[in-house]
């Protein structure tokens, strides 16, 4: 009797642990290299994809950026570790690794774009204003702000996605880690 109870208990614990950890690893990119607040989504190709990326793609149906195309970074926290929230402004400032082109988008945690009056969905490296030293500051905010502004959701969790196209970094995310800092601005 005692044996059966122990066996049952062990099986339940094992199932919960096994399924739980599998879900955790597959639900979002977890094994990417971290640079500041940013996590690099591992570049995926059919030859080198790890089992977690394969499972994530099969589950979410996402069209991942190819290994030869570029590199994607996502951030859901600022540099201080605070979760990004639409109730605050967030300042993305500094520089990016070398890339022919980059785009910055803000979505909610499910990947939905915020409402936008002028149809703006993203900021690209070609259109932002920079300082004399090439550095930039972008305000991610639900309300109008001067300068480079990316409209965001007015509330709820935010996710920033920085896509670097055609970057030498695609081969090793560790090399060169000049990623912009993310800091909190005014809150409403």
């Amino acid at each position, binding site marked *: 009797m005692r044996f059966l109870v*122990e066996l049952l*208990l*062990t*099986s339940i*614990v*094992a*199932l*919960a*642990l*096994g*399924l739980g*950890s*599998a*879900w955790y*690893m*597959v639900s979002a990119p977890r094994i990417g290299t971290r640079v500041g607040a940013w996590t690099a989504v591992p570049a*995926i*190709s*059919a030859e080198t*994809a790890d*089992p*977690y990326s*394969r*499972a994530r*793609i*099969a*589950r*979410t*149906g*996402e*069209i*991942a*950026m*190819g*290994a*030869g*195309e570029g590199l994607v970074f996502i951030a859901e926290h600022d540099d201080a570790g605070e979760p990004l929230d639409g109730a605050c402004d967030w300042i993305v400032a500094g520089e990016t690794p070398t890339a*022919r*082109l980059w*785009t910055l*988008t803000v979505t909610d945690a499910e*990947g*939905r*774009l*915020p*409402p*936008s009056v002028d*149809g703006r*969905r*993203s900021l*690209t490296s*070609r*259109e932002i204003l920079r300082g004399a030293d090439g550095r930039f500051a972008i305000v991610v905010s639900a309300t109008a702000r001067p300068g480079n502004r990316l409209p965001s959701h007015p509330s709820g969790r935010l996710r920033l996605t920085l*896509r670097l*196209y*055609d970057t030498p970094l695609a081969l090793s995310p560790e090399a060169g880690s000049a990623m912009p800092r993310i800091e909190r601005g005014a809150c409403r």
Partner: protein
Amino acid sequence: MIRSLIWLVGALLLAGIVHIVTVMGVPRFAVADPWQKIAARAGEEAFTRLPRAAAGETPLAGLDPTTTQAVCRFALDKGPTRIRADVADGYWSLSLYDRRGLWVWGVDNRAAEQKPIDILIATDVQVAQLRETLPDELDDVVIVDWAGREGFAVYKILVPAASREAEIEAVLASATCAPASLP
């Protein structure tokens, strides 16, 4: 004490096995992988333009809302697939993905030096047949050796400003993806 320790080790081992089996099994049993999501929107052997991502609409997860894109599913059972398209001035890329949604091959505007896209996707056997007698019209075609039987192509073009959207959509509409006959 020893007894519960043994049970604990057993539980961890079993959890590890469950973890591995689950992760490996997901691609096999997925019901919403990229292939099926595209199948719900687009037929085979033609490019289908996806609506651009906007507030409240995400056509397919993972795509950059700054770009506009068309997708085409292909199967190589009946013959190789030929993809031809005009190209835009700015950034564009054509990527080929396998049945599981993993990136296999791609070309972008810098690699192509602004030449129109013209590629032929073929299986090993079809490539061998082509090598024997390459028709003249395929002289300049880039031949992609495809490991599986199925896959899909994503052609995306950056829209740098809303004013250029119409022009870029027209370039996107020029893309064709059709079975080619072997000699």
